């Protein structure tokens, strides 16, 4: 297992390097000169020699790749410089907002997994009419945009029933509505995958054999189908987590949940490049770690792969 972990990380290294390069390049190639912006922010009319001096101070006179390696070395120490807008250190800003976003994404992922399993399995085992109705419901839920769903939920639960509140302070209770919004949408698209996978599995011969042996449906489902679909599902769970990290931006901005979404939207409108850069790196890392976890589940769930890994 240790060897596998080592190999997996070794093959991930080029990807991680490429990711960091993209994060750097997107911001470095952006139009607008950061030096001029900073000088303008300070309210100074720049003289040519001042500009040159500041360029040298930030290392902007160096060639592109040497700047990239400087940035990479600092990024490895979690030093992303200072926010152009607030002047505070970027990493502090990110760390303040990161836990809220992670909490939202994780709780939504759990909700979505539960919802999708229920929906997908019900659609598979139900009769023709109920199954079609459940699939219709799934497609409908996939199609409703999360921001509209959020507004509808606010309308019903906050304005009509008065159960929640709109301006939260980041307590657990304020997490319920945003989580519900995200897990309904993500759960429906996951449910579609569950349905596809289970249905594909039910076309296989070993299921036919199991039915012919007279096994009870729950036994077939949990002993013969679930072990075979759990691996591929884990990969989609990881992808869903990535989608939730992105979707969180939308839902956070509606519910006022104090996560990274607020920070990044502000950074985009103020063209605060160091913040955008760090956000990209952190979201990429979070996604990378989840994919790694998913790979473990894939291996643990597949006896053949498990044997290969423990022998090799």
């Amino acid at each position: 297992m240790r060897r596998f972990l080592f190999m997996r990380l070794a093959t991930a290294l080029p990807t991680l390097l490429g990711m960091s390069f993209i994060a750097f390049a997107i911001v470095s190639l952006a139009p607008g000169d950061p030096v001029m912006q900073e000088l303008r922010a300070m309210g100074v009319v720049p003289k040519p020699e001042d500009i040159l001096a500041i360029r040298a101070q930030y290392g902007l006179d160096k060639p592109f790749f040497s700047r990239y390696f400087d940035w990479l070395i600092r990024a490895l120490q979690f030093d992303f410089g200072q926010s152009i807008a607030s002047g505070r250190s970027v990493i502090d800003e990110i760390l303040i907002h990161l836990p809220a976003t992670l909490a939202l994404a994780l709780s939504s992922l759990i909700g979505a997994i539960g919802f999708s399993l229920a929906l997908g399995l019900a659609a598979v085992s139900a009769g023709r009419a109920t199954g079609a109705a459940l699939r219709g419901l799934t497609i409908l839920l996939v199609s409703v945009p999360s921001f509209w769903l959020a507004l509808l939920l606010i309308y019903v639960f906050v304005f009509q029933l008065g159960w929640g509140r709109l301006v939260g302070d980041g307590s657990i209770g304020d997490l319920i509505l945003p989580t519900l919004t995200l897990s309904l949408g993500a759960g429906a698209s996951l449910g579609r995958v569950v349905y596809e996978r289970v249905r594909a599995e039910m076309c296989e011969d070993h299921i036919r054999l199991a039915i012919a042996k007279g096994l009870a449906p729950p036994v077939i489902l949990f002993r013969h189908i679930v072990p075979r679909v759990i691996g591929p599902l884990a990969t989609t769970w990881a992808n869903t987590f990535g989608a939730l990290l992105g979707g969180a931006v939308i839902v956070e901005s509606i519910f006022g949940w104090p996560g990274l979404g607020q920070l990044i939207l502000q950074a985009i409108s103020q063209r605060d490049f160091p913040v955008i850069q760090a956000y990209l790196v952190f979201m990429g890392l979070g996604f990378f770690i989840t994919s790694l976890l998913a790979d473990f589940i894939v291996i643990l769930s597949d006896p053949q792969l498990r044997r290969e890994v423990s022998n090799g």
Partner: protein
Amino acid sequence: MDDIIRKTRYLPVLRLHVSAGRVGLVLGLFLLAEFVALGLAGYVIALPSPNSMDLLARLDGPSADHPLGTDHLGRDVLARVAAAVHISLGAALAAMAAILAIALPWGIIAGLSGGRVDAVMMRLADIIMAFPMLVLALAIIGFMGASLQASILGVAAAWWPSNARMVRALVLAAKERDFVHAARLCGASRGRIVLRHILPQILPPLAVIISLETASVLLALSALSFLGIGAQAPTPEWGAMLNEARPFFAQAPHMLLVPGLAVSLAVLAFNLIGEGLRDILDQREPYQW
């Protein structure tokens, strides 16, 4: 005899019996036709201009003058929703065209070359896929500045790698068919093999992918406009209209309902078409207990 075989192969829809997929497909096509009709409605019936304001009729509910009510500036909601058809669907189709323009050649070249070329091309796609898609789109909009064009480019840049991967998977399966080998042995050129033997094979599953991906691109673009970093304020766009409606939530719920329904139904249309096509193409029957 040959003729009959060809017909049944190319027109599977003709075997008439009702199934959930077929109903969905028809429903989806019908919804899409409705949107086209709504988009063209301005040419047929006299709708007020989407940006003309009637300051005396702000936040009005549905009435004879304004069938779907007015917004906070007294603009006709129906006219704006109809005008947004071009922009919202147009943006989604433009993004989808850009995605396919990259993903199709990328996937076909990677799938056909194999070996080192394939490995390098897929690695490059993997690097971009290592970011959550919406997050990457946000970053690209961040560096280009908020506009509808930036959001189209951002979505295209974030969405193409996964599409390239799907195209490659289809090509890998398609190129192993015996008749493709036979064509190659007959000395057919690469271009001919791709155009005459590979593309026709991958087109039906590709139609499913395109339709489902258009749905997700449409969702993403309207979400970006809703966040205020896609289409900008006076532009009639469904997401942007919802964004403008947010402060008037309690007073004028119709401002929220109409564009929200428009996005949902448009996305639903593409999803139904995609799922319906998939159902028709997938002829496997699960064993029932």
